[in-house]
């Protein structure tokens, strides 16, 4: 089992590697167990020893986020009522309302960044980290990794959780608002998503997949 996360020596000169962040050339050398190589130009840790457990944590958090994502979408976030009439609100209700009012691009944007992108991001992260943790060569793991990279900045559930809080405050001036369990599920999903982003080691996964070819 590979517990060391070293970047491959991708230069033909031998003994020289490139910093993955700023592409500066660095002299490669053999490192001890708790040493790491720092890029002299941008300060990125180029080589470091990382135990295999980091990917297990990413897998666990991504799975937890996926599980909490289901009730987050099926339960109402809040109930708003004015003069006896009340209205339940799910994530998808906002998408539908924007669509019905003629703002299809906005509806599509909210649908993509609050439902589609978080789901596919979490699914692909758990797929890649499961493949790494179980040492299985699962098909399409490379594609899943690229998908996770592309969607990372579009995963806006934490922002959505803040927006929920603000909306409750704002609606209180218009009528009666009550929190519903859906908002707690969204909060849980947002927290697990942020932990997943923290734990998921893209470089490690890339190296592992490259080694498999």
């Amino acid at each position, binding site marked *: 089992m590979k517990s060391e996360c070293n970047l491959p020596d991708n230069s033909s000169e031998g003994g020289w590697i490139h910093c993955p*962040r*700023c*592409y*500066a050339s660095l002299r490669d050398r053999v490192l001890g167990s708790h040493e790491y190589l720092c890029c002299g*130009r*941008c300060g990125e840790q180029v080589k470091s020893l990382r135990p295999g457990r980091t990917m297990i944590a990413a897998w666990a958090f991504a799975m937890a986020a996926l599980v909490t994502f289901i009730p987050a979408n099926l339960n109402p*976030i*809040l109930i*708003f009522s*004015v*003069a006896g*009439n009340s*209205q339940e*609100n*799910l994530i998808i*209700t*906002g*998408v*539908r*309302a*924007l669509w019905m*009012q003629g*703002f299809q*691009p*906005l*509806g599509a*944007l*909210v649908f993509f*960044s*609050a439902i589609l992108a978080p789901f596919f991001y979490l699914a692909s992260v758990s797929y890649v980290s499961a493949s790494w943790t179980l040492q299985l060569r699962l098909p399409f793991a490379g594609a899943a990794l690229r998908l996770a990279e592309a969607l990372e*900045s579009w995963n*806006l559930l934490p*922002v*959505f959780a*803040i*927006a*929920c*809080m*603000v*909306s409750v*405050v*704002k*609606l209180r*001036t*218009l*009528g009666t608002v009550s929190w519903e369990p859906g908002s707690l599920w969204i909060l849980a999903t947002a927290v697990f998503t942020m932990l997943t982003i923290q734990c998921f080691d893209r470089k490690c996964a890339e190296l592992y997949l490259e080694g498999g070819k």
Partner: protein
Amino acid sequence: MTDHLKVKLSRALTAAGIILYVPANFLPVMTITLTGQVESLTVMGGVVELYETGLVPVAAVVFLASVVVPIVKLVSLSWLLGLHGSEVNQSRRMKVHLFLIRIGTWAMVDIFLLSILVAVGQLGILASVQAEAGALFFAAMIICTLYAADIYKTHMIWQQPMPSST
């Protein structure tokens, strides 16, 4: 796509973001109708309204996310892209770029807020919230800045300028 082309695209998106910034902030984002009273709010108007109801922390969050973040992004993106290829402040520019990527998505708070408000404001004549054209410009501006910061990679800050004859 070559790095040279990416810089060009990033510049174009930043310029588009600056142009879209004007209608995004001067056109109303939503119209709230409550028991006959009609009120159109711009992005800044929404913040002022929150502040006036005495909810200062919430107003501060919305102000930071939807007023400060877009301005900071547009100004620092123009700074980064304007200095592209020069050797001035390279390590500071890198820190600014990493910071930009981190704060970039928070401007979406306003769009999500609108989607929730529009969803609950469907109680007929009693209360209704209608999205307005300003929201489209605001969303387009945010997408432009998000994409511009995403395309311009950190290592490009350290690149030598392209020779004019390729």
